[in-house]
């Protein structure tokens, strides 16, 4: 009988599926619901120190091959966020990952410090939001040095193990992976959205998103995500949460073969409903059963052989 249990750092997930940051993860209650509905772990929407209203609507638009979003990192501020995460940590049957972001290294440390109060199982450092520029003039995740600086600042203060979330929009993701692992990252999450992209309404001749551009997710980005996970696995020796376009069991297996320890699911919540975690787990189980794999561990990174 195949076993879906997935050891991830100091925890064991009941299955390798993980709710990705920014999907249904604003409130603790949603995180708990997704955990109950079958996610092996759940990630909160990225939290910052101060309230940010985000962009006006539309903030998401669907295209033929995925979604494009520019939610604009709207957050309710650190105090509200702490209470939401606390609620999730107390009530979720699955481990809770608190995602944080900030506009400079110091604030990354501050928000991570504060989030300790909520006792999340892991902290995920979102250095890869395509719409936020660092104090150094480009997204943190595009530069190995800034990526490392953020990582070590968070690592210094965080009580929970630190996952760093990378962007695919870089010439060489191996470089970034190496730099954050050298700086102390316990795990890597890859990838954040691709692009950015733009969808223009041809009737009004206007970009649809109020922010004009947004990050691309869903089936469109799966090959890029799989390649990134493959690259990172070949470069560093920490567990990887593979995210990007995973919609069914086959996609999840592809990620695991590429080197993922756990598999993030975001846009597929839209395509297959909140039950997608249970469905994907069943599909993974069935594949393992018919292909004589007994553990997720055993399948990890097989595409490298």
């Amino acid at each position, binding site marked *: 009988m195949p076993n879906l249990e997935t050891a991830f750092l100091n925890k064991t997930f009941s299955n390798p599926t993980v709710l990705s940051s920014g999907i249904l993860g604003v409130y*603790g209650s949603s995180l708990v619901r997704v955990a109950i509905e079958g996610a092996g772990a759940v990630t909160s*929407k990225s939290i910052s120190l101060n309230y940010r209203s985000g962009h006006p609507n539309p903030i998401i638009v669907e295209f033929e091959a995925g979604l494009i979003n520019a939610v604009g990192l709207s957050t309710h501020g650190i105090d509200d966020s702490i209470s939401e995460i606390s609620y999730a940590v*107390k009530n979720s*049957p699955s481990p809770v990952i608190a995602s944080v972001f900030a506009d400079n290294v110091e604030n990354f440390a501050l928000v991570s410090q504060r989030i300790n109060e909520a006792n999340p199982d892991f902290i995920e450092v979102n250095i890869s939001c395509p719409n936020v520029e660092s104090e150094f003039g480009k997204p943190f995740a595009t530069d190995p040095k800034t990526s490392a600086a953020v990582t070590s600042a968070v690592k210094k203060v965080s009580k929970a193990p630190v996952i760093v979330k990378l962007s695919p929009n870089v010439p060489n993701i191996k470089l970034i992976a190496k730099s954050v692992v050298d700086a102390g990252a316990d795990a890597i999450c890859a990838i954040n959205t691709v692009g950015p992209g733009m969808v223009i*309404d041809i009737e*009004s001749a206007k970009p649809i998103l109020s922010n004009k551009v947004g990050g691309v997710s869903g089936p469109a980005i799966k090959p890029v995500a799989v390649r990134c996970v493959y690259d990172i696995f070949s470069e560093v020796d920490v567990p990887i949460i593979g995210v990007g376009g995973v919609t069914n069991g086959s996609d999840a297996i592809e990620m695991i073969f590429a080197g993922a320890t756990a598999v993030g699911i975001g846009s597929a*919540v*839209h395509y297959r*409903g*909140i039950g997608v975690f249970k469905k994907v787990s069943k599909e993974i189980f069935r594949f393992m059963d018919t292909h004589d794999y007994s553990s997720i561990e055993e399948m990890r990174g097989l595409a490298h052989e």
Partner: protein
Amino acid sequence: MNEGAQNSGRLNKPITLPIVKVVDEAKDFKSFYFDFDLDAKPGQFVTVWIPGVNEKPFAVSGQKDGLFSVTVSAVGPFTNKMHELKEGDKVGVKGPYGTHYKISGPDCDGTGAEHKNLVLVAGGYGVAPLVFLAEEAVGKGVQTTMIAGTRTKELLAFREKLESIGVEYLAATDDGSEGFHGFVTDVLENQISQGKASEICACGPRPMLERVGAIAEKHNLPGQFGLESYMKCGFGICGECAVDYKGIHICKDGPVFPLATAMKIFRFKKENDNFSQDNTDDKSEKEVF
């Protein structure tokens, strides 16, 4: 709480539609008609996008002969902008989204008992989805009463339309300028005491809904409630519209809920709740494969 279903074929990308008709329904309350076969059910909503401004949710207020309408109360920047739009102006529309009011004809179960007296309770622009519902109910032969409450006479809408199709229309105004001087809940209690209410469908401000809910519970009447919440995506992905301890999302699990769920949502106090103590019937167990 229904498990989020698979999304339908249509892309969640606005379709641009010209406004084919604008009707003043009351003071600062206008209906906008679109020539599009929407296939919505009463209680469902669409989002309306005005490029460069914003995109907001509105209940479908009617659907007939290949047209559909939304009826918009001017309360802020977006709705004021909408009120400036004229016939021929174009907006982007997405949807229909969400759950809907479910009614069946009076004899559908052979007992003749169901929906003998459907009472619709509307507060403010909550009347919009209920007008659509009233038309459907009447079409099914259900005897229907609309209790509509507003602050004052000029805000009342749809009386003529509803009466013309045979709906009993009872108004309640805060200032007594028309109909009953007081709350819709008083009119409702009166209907119930006269035995003229077998089911309640309500839509309006949260405090009104809570009081209507309490009345329905007290009299053991079935009810369906249209809720609202701040929305971003509108189709169940961003998580902004979650309202309670169960992670119910208004945009996809709602906006229309049965009485019992609505009451749970109303009573929810996150601070004092401990999820693990919850033992409602719809609690799923975590399965491990």
